[in-house]
């Protein structure tokens, strides 16, 4: 329902935005020539069209539109799938969806196999000639097995009856199937049972139930009942073996010779043993293949084709829904369950995704006992203890208190300082955010900040000073091309499994980018500006602060934007390493438990966070360097 409304809203939004765009083109007068960046300004309506298009594709390809407009279609398609599934083995025998009869294909293949074996035996360098004679004899005999199976005169009476019976059952089913009276009503007890079971059944896409399997509509029941009948027919057919007396005689002969030969082999005649086994395997393969005379199954094939036509017709508008609203796949019945086969499987529906996202956001649920983003109350003392280094207490003159004879410890000034720096004092509490999203955010932020703090001064220094350039250049250039993940195997050994290692990886990413951009910015400053400052009597520090730094800011900020993108890219991999929290951790675990909705949520969250960072930086760029591109 909700999805339906959204779908219409999106369509209206797109139409509205397009109309607005047309109107704008007609009314707006602009003197900007081609190439003027002003021409790219504005255009909110195009943002609406773009995001609507994205959402619409998501709704369509995840089959969410099908779910909201035709909620019953999945259940009906599941019943159709049951029929398809029950016919699969039988259809597979005939050139309905294949090019050849299965018997034809097998005979062709095995004839080639026999021929190859004969050639191989003849040319075998090690086999003894008396063995070769036996093998060739057996292979020649195997050749005669096939005609004994395909000769229509040898087909046994009981098999002919079975085939006819089964064919008749299919024909009757074909006749009955389109009628309104099909399926015949169940008796009272079974009917109540069916209705009871139906009541317990949950809808399509409900937690734990991908596609409900029990038929809910009259049409579904029709297909469901037909599938049961067809499954029975298929089972009976495949239990039947075309082992006529003639065939049995030949194979018996082959088996006796082969077994006798096998018994006479001693332990080290492995080669001969493997040959005789291969020949027996070949025979066994033919034994289990359902090979029948070429025309024996013609009527059955026709019956199946007819039924297929009728059931196709009976599907009616369901076929249209399947084709239009289930792009790239359909509902598949396989074993006890029906499942979505196609993009519906791996592309979760927006409605499910947001529902699960909403669940995950609840602090009491979260993922693996940790909420996505929430807050906890933390004492200021802990923060002070974390920031102040413990050795401050050691610097205070005097000694730490020693316990007295009456078994008490009297604190002195030094121990009180220690209490402060380790955070062991009472203080008010403030809310501190925590959770997967916050942790990831903080890691990226820390890595980026460290990169900027160390990278920018070093970069500017390298741009201005010959020593710095020469000294640091080889170091930076050597490590810069190394992808940050190449450090990953070392991180756990060197930095342990806590945040240090992950932040280090991100720092490595941002550091080199910041150096390069700051250096390029510093060395790209216009000489005339520096000369002008000089002639006005500016000091070195003033030149650096007032001329060089502002001039390299555009480069630096672009560098920050690039670094953010790279940091997010590296973060996921870093959190795969030894995960306890973080978006990357969530994604990795979700993959192991096949929770595709959660995977899409993490991708979505990362996209949004990346966008947030980027928008922030864009705002900073607009604020701090409004002159960019106008110089």
């Amino acid at each position, binding site marked *: 329902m909700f999805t339906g409304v959204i779908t219409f809203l999106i369509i209206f939004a797109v139409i509205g935005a397009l109309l607005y765009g047309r109107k704008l083109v007609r009314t707006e007068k602009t003197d900007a020539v081609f190439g003027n960046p002003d021409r790219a300004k504005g255009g909110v309506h195009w943002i609406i069209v773009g995001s609507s298009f994205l959402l619409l594709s998501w709704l369509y390809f995840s089959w969410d539109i099908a779910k909201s407009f035709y909620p019953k279609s999945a259940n009906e398609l599941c019943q159709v799938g049951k029929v398809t599934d029950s016919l699969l083995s039988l259809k597979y025998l005939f050139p309905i969806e294949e090019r050849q009869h299965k018997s034809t294909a097998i005979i062709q293949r095995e004839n080639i196999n026999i021929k190859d074996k004969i050639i191989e035996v003849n040319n075998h360098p090690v086999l003894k000639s008396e063995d070769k004679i036996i093998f060739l004899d057996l292979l020649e005999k195997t050749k005669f097995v096939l005609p004994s199976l395909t000769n229509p005169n040898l087909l046994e009476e009981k098999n002919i009856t079975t085939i006819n019976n089964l064919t008749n059952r299919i024909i009757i089913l074909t006749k009955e199937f389109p009628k309104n009276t099909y399926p015949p009503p169940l008796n009272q007890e079974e009917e109540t049972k069916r209705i009871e079971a139906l009541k317990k059944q949950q809808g399509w896409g409900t937690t734990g139930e991908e596609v409900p399997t029990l038929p809910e509509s009259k049409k579904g029941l029709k297909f469901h009942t037909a599938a049961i009948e067809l499954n029975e027919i298929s089972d009976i057919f495949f239990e039947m073996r075309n082992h006529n007396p003639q065939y049995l005689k030949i194979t018996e002969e082959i088996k006796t010779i082969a077994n006798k030969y096998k018994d006479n082999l001693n332990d080290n005649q492995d080669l001969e043993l493997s040959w005789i086994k291969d020949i027996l395997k070949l025979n066994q393969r033919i034994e289990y293949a359902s090979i029948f005379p070429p025309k024996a199954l013609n009527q059955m094939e026709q019956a199946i084709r007819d039924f297929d036509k009728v059931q196709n017709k009976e599907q009616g508008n369901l076929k249209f829904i399947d084709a239009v609203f289930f792009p790239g796949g359909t509902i598949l019945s396989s074993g006890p369950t029906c499942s979505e086969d196609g993009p519906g499987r791996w592309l979760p529906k927006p409605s499910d995704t947001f529902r699960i996202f909403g669940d995950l956001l609840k602090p009491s649920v979260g993922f693996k006992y940790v909420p996505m983003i929430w807050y906890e109350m933390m004492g200021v003392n802990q923060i002070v203890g974390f920031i102040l280094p413990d050795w401050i207490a050691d610097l205070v003159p005097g000694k730490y208190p020693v316990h007295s004879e009456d078994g008490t410890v009297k604190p002195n000034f030094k121990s009180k300082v220690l209490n402060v720096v380790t955070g062991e004092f009472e203080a008010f509490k403030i809310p501190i955010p925590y959770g997967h999203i916050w942790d990831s955010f903080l890691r990226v932020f820390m890595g980026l900040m460290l990169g900027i703090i160390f990278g920018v001064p070093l970069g500017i220094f390298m741009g201005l000073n010959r020593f710095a350039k020469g000294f640091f250049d080889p170091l930076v250039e050597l490590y810069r091309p190394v992808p940050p993940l190449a450090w990953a195997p070392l991180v756990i050994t060197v930095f342990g499994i806590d945040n240090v290692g992950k932040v280090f990886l991100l720092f490595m990413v941002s550091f080199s980018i910041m150096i390069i951009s700051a250096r390029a910015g510093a060395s790209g400053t216009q000489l005339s500006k520096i000369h002008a400052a000089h002639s006005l009597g500016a000091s070195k520090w003033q030149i650096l602060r007032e001329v060089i730094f502002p001039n390299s800011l555009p480069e630096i900020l672009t560098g920050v934007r690039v670094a953010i993108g790279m940091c997010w890219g590296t973060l996921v991999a870093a959190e795969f390493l030894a995960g*306890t929290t973080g978006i990357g951790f969530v994604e990795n675990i979700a993959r192991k438990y096949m929770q595709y909705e959660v995977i899409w949520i993490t991708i979505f969250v990362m996209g949004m966070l990346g966008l947030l960072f980027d928008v922030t930086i864009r705002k900073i760029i607009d604020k701090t360097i409004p002159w960019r591109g106008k110089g």
Partner: protein
Amino acid sequence: MKKIISALFGMLLVFSLNTSVANAAAKEVRIAFFLEWASPNQEDKVKGAFAKAFGVPVKWTNFATGGEMTEAMMSGDIDISYSQGLTPFVNAVNSKKPITLVDVSILYGMKGTTCVVANSTGISKANASQLEGKKVAVALGTMADYVFKETMRVVGANPAKMTVVDMVPEDSAVALVNGDVAMSCLFGKKSIAKALEAGKLMLSVQEASDNGIAGIDVTSVTNKFLKENPGMVKTFLEITHAANERYKAGKSDFNVIAKDATMDVKSTKEQMASFGFPSTKQQKKEYFGRKGILMTYLDVMGNMFATAENPALKDYSKVVTTKYLP
């Protein structure tokens, strides 16, 4: 514009060709397996016995985890997974993936998958509840995850109160040696040996098996392949079980197996000696019955790894079959 349209059509054409190849009836059988996980049928694999018996070529692909095997089966690149762990199989069927268990391929005791607790923590099974509030490394979603939860149940500690760090066995062993985690639950001969440098087993092999903790690897097949090529599944299991019998009779060629498993002969022999390869008779009698070992495990594990979106199945007998056992 024309160029764009023709490029699009070209892409469509290539795509449809691709799918038609993927759906073509068994011109090739694609099997998944593990390296460093020796099994007798690897001899047949190297000698090409499978291809000969199927009458079509066989493509073997090695994987790092059973979960990846499931992913490949779902994308249609693998037909049969040999020795997939029961945990990834359960995760797959809980999330309604169309695959079926056809055979119990390997049983392994806690020599192969276990929990090692760091010596420095002074924790043993007597005071295991001290692990609560500490960090433990677990390879989540694998058999090690199952062993972790079962071990904690036996020693009476609450896993929900520990900080679980998801780590692959190699990293997990290093983290234990470095003292980053108090305990690590891991698999693999080399990783466990490394972890034991700084720790000891939480439960001995004997204690684990007394408490019913054991590893089970299974053979799983996509339902599509089962439907289309039931004979080949049967043949696969026949050859595998024949190889197991050959191994039990002491006639396996360890040089070939070791080379294929990328291990040396000595550790291959050791590893295989610690494995169990249940015969078909044993399986039908003890494993697949209503109260059979396998079914009990499936129920326990199914509930253990159930999530809100992928709850446990009511009846796991629908995703297993003995129909193809020789």
